[in-house]
């Protein structure tokens, strides 16, 4: 018989997209043979500062579940007062709890497992989506009078891919270009990539300028177009590819940061591409340093891969992944992507 469960989570302080994605994961997880259950209720724990997010998530989570669950909100003291008095969280038998919120919130849940007498004889599940996006830690707590038995399962992530658009929109980023799926790369571009890999950067740039009758300034832009076409032809590795992504920052006198391309791989990781078609090593070095910084998005940094696209001759001067930034020519892009996808 399918077990009826209640989903419990803390409303987040910042954006809601990460929590929403985690909720989708937990909902998908309910179909797992070892957990098999149906969601009939949802409890959102929040404080004054997260009440707005809780209300928004209440609407969104109802839409995710076809069983029309009863969604309740439960108010907690704010962070400054969270440990002024002992708090009994309204946990119940068979609750499935998402490990969200702050460390203190997690501590509060674990404290309640030990001290809440209402939970004696009950069992609860806590789901922790690991930051690597590959797997989940699922902890089953069985509570008796004087002990807690913990059974842990590692389950492959059933829903690793978050929507890149939603991640970017949450950061108020503007998407300049959406790269479409294109199963084939034109013969002309294929030939250009081949020639580029065989020639010096300077010779190839001359060839590009004479073939397309463009200035030296436009040569880099043309290479970006070819790179975009190549990525579109590799779409089977991606779920989304966006170009000219503009981040604007509030509360700062310097407002903008524009990135050439951001793409979501099928394994849920992001690739941060920068095109640098220059023959000056200083520019590549500078870009490599720049890419060591964090993207202004709410996404685990360990799952963001940095790639500089440049002339093959320039790429060969650098080791495969110097300082965590991969520098590659277009001809080697396929093998570069494979190394990101094959990670476990």
């Amino acid at each position: 018989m399918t077990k009826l469960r209640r989903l419990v989570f803390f409303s987040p302080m910042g954006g809601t997209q990460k929590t929403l994605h985690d909720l989708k994961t937990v909902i998908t997880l309910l179909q797992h043979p070892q957990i098999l259950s149906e969601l009939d209720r949802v409890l959102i724990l929040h404080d004054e500062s997260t009440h707005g997010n809780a209300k928004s998530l209440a609407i969104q989570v109802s839409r995710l579940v076809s069983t029309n669950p009863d969604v309740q909100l439960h108010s907690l003291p704010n962070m400054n007062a969270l440990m002024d008095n002992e708090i009994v969280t309204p946990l119940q038998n068979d609750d499935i709890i998402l490990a969200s919120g702050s460390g203190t919130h997690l501590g509060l849940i674990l404290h309640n497992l030990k001290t809440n007498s209402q939970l004696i004889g009950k069992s609860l599940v806590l789901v922790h989506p690991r930051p690597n996006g590959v797997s989940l830690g699922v902890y089953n707590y069985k509570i008796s009078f004087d002990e807690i038995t913990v059974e842990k399962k590692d389950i492959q992530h059933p829903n690793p891919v978050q929507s890149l658009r939603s991640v970017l929109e949450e950061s108020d980023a503007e998407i300049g270009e959406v790269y479409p799926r294109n199963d084939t790369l034109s013969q002309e571009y294929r030939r250009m990539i081949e020639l580029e890999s065989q020639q010096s950067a300077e010779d190839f740039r001359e060839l590009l300028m004479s073939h397309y009758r463009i200035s030296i300034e436009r040569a880099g832009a043309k290479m970006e177009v070819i790179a975009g076409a190549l990525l579109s032809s590799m779409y089977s590795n991606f779920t989304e590819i966006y170009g000219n992504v503009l981040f604007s920052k509030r509360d700062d006198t310097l407002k903008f940061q524009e990135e050439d391309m951001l793409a979501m791989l099928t394994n849920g990781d992001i690739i941060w591409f920068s095109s640098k078609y220059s023959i000056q090593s200083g520019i590549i070095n500078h870009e490599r340093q720049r890419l060591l910084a964090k993207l202004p998005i709410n996404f685990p940094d360990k799952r963001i891969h940095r790639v500089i696209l440049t002339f093959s001759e320039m790429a060969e001067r650098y080791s495969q992944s110097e300082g965590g930034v991969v520098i590659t020519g277009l001809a080697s892009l396929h093998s570069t992507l494979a190394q990101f996808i094959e990670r476990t």
Partner: protein
Amino acid sequence: MVQKTLIFASGISFGNTCQIVQTAIASNLFSAVKILSSPQTQNINRHLVSMFNAKNTDFSLQSIPLNDFINNPAEFLSTSEELNFLIGPSTVENQLETFAALCAINPPRMWSVFEKRTKSGISTREFRSFDVKDSVALVEISSDEIHRMLPSPVSSLLREHGIQWESSTSRFNYHINFDSMRGNTPHRQRKWEQKQYATINQLREHLGIHGLIITHSPLPNHWQKQDGTLRRLSARQIREVSK
């Protein structure tokens, strides 16, 4: 008498680990502390334990490899001990694994480093038990003391980069002063920015992201690249202060 043991999985921030240990000893609430160390923190925690044990002979302080502890907690704890688990440092996964391992011996009493924040910053930092029966102000560690505790290569690295210890927040502070580049060419400014990046990354490896505060002086008018990468890309991680 029942031995009261405090257990926590340590994060990379050395100052934080040091402060937790000092507070636990000074509080007289615990008779032992067990630090669970990941492969990244094992060496520095071993060093910390040897430094403490040299001067606190009546207090039991141990650094235990986290994986060994999770696989066999009974090797390190007895059922007669009162277990106190401090949540907060280290990753969520390490904390959940530690809690599960402790439950195999005895469900622990839960603690947290509790911070009260005001608009101007943190006003209170305390060790507090979730049953609210105990609360201890975190011990402030002086700059001299933290440098005595640090392994000498790390201490030298901090001195080399002029890193200050902020005892009120228990974090190290690296201050970037743009004025030092006054009169230099844009090329030199860019080189200098790159060097700053490399330094920040190196320091974070040793001190942890949470253990290091990075500040910079206001961007001066003479700065050639007003949208310089250091400031533009790190606004979320680096705050501007006048020093």
